[in-house]
């Protein structure tokens, strides 16, 4: 429900990079929208007043890359649990990927995801807003384009075959052309499957020692480079998901300098972990693209700091315990990330003083909103009251048992982090309260 009662947050430090604000102010929400951010607001008499002294008030976080698994994978996650998990992580909007079963390749399937999220919200069990991303091709098979117009009408905000890279360059060209009618990006999981050749981790000395098949950097970089040239040719909006290699960061940097419309994500794990995390065959560190070498980790991290990769996205990929509790080759790729992303990034980027808190809020909220055309990422009066209240100094230890997500597959278990989500407000409605 949106904004039954006005809401007044008092005494907080407002951090809103979209308006270059970083100072103590009060924030008033009326009718599900931001009414005012000023000092000494009194608000209407019936307003709910929350004292947030000592805390940070920022635009709600936005993650353009999550897997909610419904329909078809409800034992891993559902739209309901995924949205709640997102709210617990400070997110107010998430983009749900279409590689479900069946995939989101027709308007009915896309509409289902959107309606399901709204239905739970109406019942008081909502979390973040869920925007479905449509499949780029029927059945994610990489052959025939979906009815993109119909998907957009049903609520799709972008198209992708995520998990199944769009291999055919001719098809990629058509997609980058056709989507321009609707002003939506094509999201690409950049991977050349022939170069990957059934690899399960980064190619190199660690894979050699473990006897695991390797995925070379070129598998990602070659497709990123190819897609950039196609984007340049067509003028379409190419969005590169989860960049993991320094070669891809470099290709995107050069493309930006040429004015190509390319945007890109960095994931918390690719900025903080390397292939070493896979030692002892840890399936909770198995993801695709894989954790790479230190030089790649630094390049992705620096790419985010420089803004070449303008946004952080988690690639939240829940898997059931039993699916990960098996031989490394047979375990599925992916880790959960919604409930750890903010604190991991605070610890690894802000505590280290490589990024200020406003810059982190930018990468996790304002920048994805601006790059992807999302109504959010700002506390400007009149905008939706999608707000996160944060304690930037709280120290805690990641314990997967506390996750709201249905799944626990994280390589960050036991990690000491800084920064806690205290409250998440979506359209004026509190969807998470740390209490």
């Amino acid at each position, binding site marked *: 429900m949106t904004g039954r009662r006005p809401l007044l947050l008092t005494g907080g430090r407002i951090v809103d990079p979209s308006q270059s604000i970083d100072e103590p102010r009060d924030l008033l929400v009326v009718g599900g929208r931001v009414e005012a951010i000023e000092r000494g607001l009194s608000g209407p008499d019936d307003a709910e007043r929350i004292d947030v002294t000592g805390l940070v008030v920022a635009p709600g976080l936005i993650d353009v890359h999550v897997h909610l698994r419904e329909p078809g994978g409800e034992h891993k996650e559902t739209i309901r649990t995924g949205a709640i998990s997102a709210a617990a992580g400070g997110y107010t909007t998430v983009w749900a990927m279409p590689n479900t079963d069946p995939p989101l390749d027709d308007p009915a399937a896309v509409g289902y995801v959107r309606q399901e999220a709204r239905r739970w919200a109406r019942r008081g069990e909502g979390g973040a807003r869920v925007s479905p991303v449509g499949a780029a091709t029927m059945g994610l098979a990489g052959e025939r384009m979906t009815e993109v117009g119909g998907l957009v009408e049903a609520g799709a905000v972008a198209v992708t075959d995520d998990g199944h890279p769009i291999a055919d360059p001719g098809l990629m060209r058509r997609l980058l052309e056709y989507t321009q009618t609707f002003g939506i990006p094509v999201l690409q999981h950049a991977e050349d499957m022939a170069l990957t050749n059934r690899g399960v981790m980064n*190619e*190199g*000395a*660690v*894979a*050699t*020692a*473990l*006897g*695991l*098949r*390797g995925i*070379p950097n070129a598998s990602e970089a070659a497709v990123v480079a190819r897609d950039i040239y196609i984007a340049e040719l067509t003028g379409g909006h190419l969005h590169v998901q989860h960049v993991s290699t320094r070669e891809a960061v470099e290709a995107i940097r050069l493309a930006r300098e040429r004015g190509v419309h390319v945007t890109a994500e960095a994931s918390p794990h690719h900025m903080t972990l390397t292939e070493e995390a896979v030692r*002892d*065959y840890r399936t909770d560190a198995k993801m695709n693209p894989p954790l790479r070498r230190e030089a790649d980790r630094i390049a992705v991290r620096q790419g985010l700091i420089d803004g070449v990769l303008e946004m952080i996205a988690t690639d939240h990929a829940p898997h059931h315990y*039993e699916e990960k*509790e*098996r*031989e*490394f*080759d*047979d375990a599925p790729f992916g880790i959960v990330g919604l409930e750890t992303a903010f604190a991991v990034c605070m610890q690894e980027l802000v505590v280290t003083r490589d990024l200020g808190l406003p810059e982190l809020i930018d990468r996790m909220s304002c920048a994805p909103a601006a790059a992807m055309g999302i109504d959010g990422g700002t506390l400007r009066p009149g905008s939706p009251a999608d707000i996160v209240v944060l304690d930037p100094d709280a120290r805690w230890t990641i314990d997967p048992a506390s996750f709201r997500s249905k799944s626990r597959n994280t390589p960050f278990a036991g990690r000491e982090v800084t920064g806690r989500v205290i409250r998440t407000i979506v359209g004026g409605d509190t969807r998470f309260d740390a209490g």
Partner: protein
Amino acid sequence: MSLGKDLVGLEHLDRADITAILDTAEPFKEISERAIKKVPVLRGKTIVNLFFEASTRTRISFEFAEKRLSADTVNISSSGSSVAKGETLVDTARNLEAMRIDMVVVRHGSSGAARFLADRIPSNVINAGDGQHEHPTQALLDLLTIRDRFGEIEGRRVCLVGDILHSRVARSNIWGLLKCGAEVAVCGPRTLIPLGIEDLGVRVLTTVEEAIEWCDVLYVLRIQLERMTGGYLPSLREYNRVFGVSSARLTHASDDMIVMHPGPMNRGVEIDSDVADGERSVILPQVTNGVAVRMAVLYLLAGGQPELAETAKGGA
């Protein structure tokens, strides 16, 4: 001696561990030469040979080692077992645990499977080959064979030739040889040499001629037929032409250079018959040593002391 509960690989053993296993194997060699090839060292112990992948020589070698030490053994192979019915490795492990067995010898197609099992059951786990990861008892028998021939491993130059990329034998040998002080090189078509192999501490030799001139031990690896379908090699004939070990190529070898092979051989592919059956070949002594080394590993993991091996095998 810090062998621990399991033998999963040689990467995490130190030189003293390896030496202790080889020393323990020495007295056990003699048991196989007796008329009655049985000693009561493992009487009352139950051992499961759990083979998810086809194996003839390794399984038989383990079985002889177990039987000659008087253990009770059961063989499970993937076809016709619950494994073929879709049972997970975790459940297989739990069921074995529930039957209170003492040791598991496991062969599995996935790298890390032996470690996975070892972490989940209290029994001793011996890796009989996991994917492309390790095959520690093979490397131990190879080390024993090299030591038999040269007196010591330290300072010897060993070159592994062939498919390094897919070879667990190569990985275990690299770790074992390096820990024992050997110089190690690998040689083969670049498609079958893994990236980052130098980081393990080995050198890469480009041609087999170069390898033959350089080494004291030429360790020839088996070329698997499926490497052709994977596009790693144009043909077996081409492999033999460029990397096949023939007597003609051995003319530049040092006088005491030996040729090893883990078997089974593809005669006329990676090794020609005149070399396999020739004077430099120690391929059959490798097989003989396999039983002794596996007896030593079983004995040590069961709690036996290296220095008491001589007494143990005579005893009772």
